[in-house]
């Protein structure tokens, strides 16, 4: 299983692996916001938590279709299905690799982008904490969506349509933690719900993803 994780990480940083793509997308979205809504500090500060969360979520979405599609095309997925490791573990490892390659850089870059949007200082740690707690759910849900659409030609758009509604609860609680943190309110309740969502998604969805892959491999 470690071999699979190491391979996916290695592929991500080699040419064409897509490492940094999501980060660049996140950066551009956040840079575009002041052009769209004006550069008043007060207005930007008010929308910063929501915008940062939405930007991170869309950036996560960008690389989802690669999770299984590349392995499907070159036959690796067939061979992994015959390998001694269970497909459930394959799905979990793939979601973990996606999180490490895509979501973790977003979490680390978020404070910097928060500064650009005048996010109040007390909100900074809560933004990072909310992203840390919420992005595992995004990767797990996304890998399930990727498993559902794996055999389809150009399934990327369908994948977005399936996954975005499923992202709603994570977005609501994640942005709420960041907003409450920025306004100096108590963010613990939405943070607990967000953590619960992530834990539930990480625990259950690899099984659903493996079942979807089995059907798609037939």
């Amino acid at each position, binding site marked *: 299983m*470690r*071999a*699979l994780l190491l*391979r996916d990480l*290695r*592929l991500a940083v*080699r*040419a*064409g*692996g897509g490492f940094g793509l999501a980060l660049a997308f996140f950066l551009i979205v956040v840079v575009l916001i002041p052009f769209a809504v004006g550069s008043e500090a007060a207005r930007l500060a008010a929308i910063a938590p929501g915008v940062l969360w939405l930007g991170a979520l869309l950036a996560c979405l960008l690389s989802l279709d690669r999770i299984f599609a590349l392995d499907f*095309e*070159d*036959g*690796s997925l*067939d*061979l*992994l*299905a*015959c*390998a*001694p*490791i269970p497909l459930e573990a394959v799905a979990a490892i793939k979601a973990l690799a996606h999180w490490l390659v895509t979501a973790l850089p977003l979490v680390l870059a978020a404070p910097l982008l928060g500064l650009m949007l005048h996010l109040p200082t007390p909100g900074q740690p809560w933004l990072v904490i909310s992203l840390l707690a919420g992005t595992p759910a995004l990767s797990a849900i996304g890998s399930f969506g990727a498993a559902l659409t794996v055999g389809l030609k150009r399934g990327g758009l369908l994948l977005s349509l399936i996954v975005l509604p499923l992202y709603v609860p994570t977005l609501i609680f994640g942005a709420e933690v960041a907003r409450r943190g920025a306004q100096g309110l108590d963010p613990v309740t939405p943070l607990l719900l967000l953590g619960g969502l992530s834990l539930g998604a990480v625990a259950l969805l690899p099984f659903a993803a493996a079942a979807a892959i089995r*059907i798609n*491999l*037939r």
Partner: protein
Amino acid sequence: MSKPLLHTSDLTCLRGGVPVLDNVALRLMPGAALILRGPNGAGKTTLLRTLAGLQPPGAGRIDAAPDSLTYAAHADGLKPMLTAAENLTFWARIHGQDVRGESGIDTALAALNLTELRDRLAAQMSAGQKRRLGLARLLVTGRPVWLLDEPTVSLDAASVMLFAQLVRGHLATGGAALIATHVDLGLEAETLDIARFRAAAGRLADGFDEAFL
């Protein structure tokens, strides 16, 4: 008499929910190879994928020891941005095999005349070289039963001989191989024409349209 490595009885194979093969009975003993023949569309790939466990059989049973089969298909399962050695190392680790030593990746590379290409990216290999690397993968899985679907595609005559030698070596160590091919490999093997297992046309399994899934 030793136990067969792979044994099927009354096996029905489905493609898109429609039976293509019925009552498939085959038996693969240690050290034996079985060549599958049949015209295009006869269901060779479907049979091999069913045996490999990639799709559930419509009926019947497949008897094989757990984790004893490996499958090689048209796609080689290679990552273009990894070198030959990295690709094989990955598959060896996934199957819990030693990467170094007697059964390691260097032996597998040498067996298919790929030692010089050890550190070349798979993306920069020719079709035949990729195919050979895909076949070298069989050695590092350590599995006794090989299910091979057109293994000689894009191989030149010398490589086909090399591959035949590889299969002979595998059989000599008690392995077995089920090979769907149109090429004469010069193996001492039985031939099974699967056209005689062809299912009656137009029948859906249990009247349930599984193709919808």
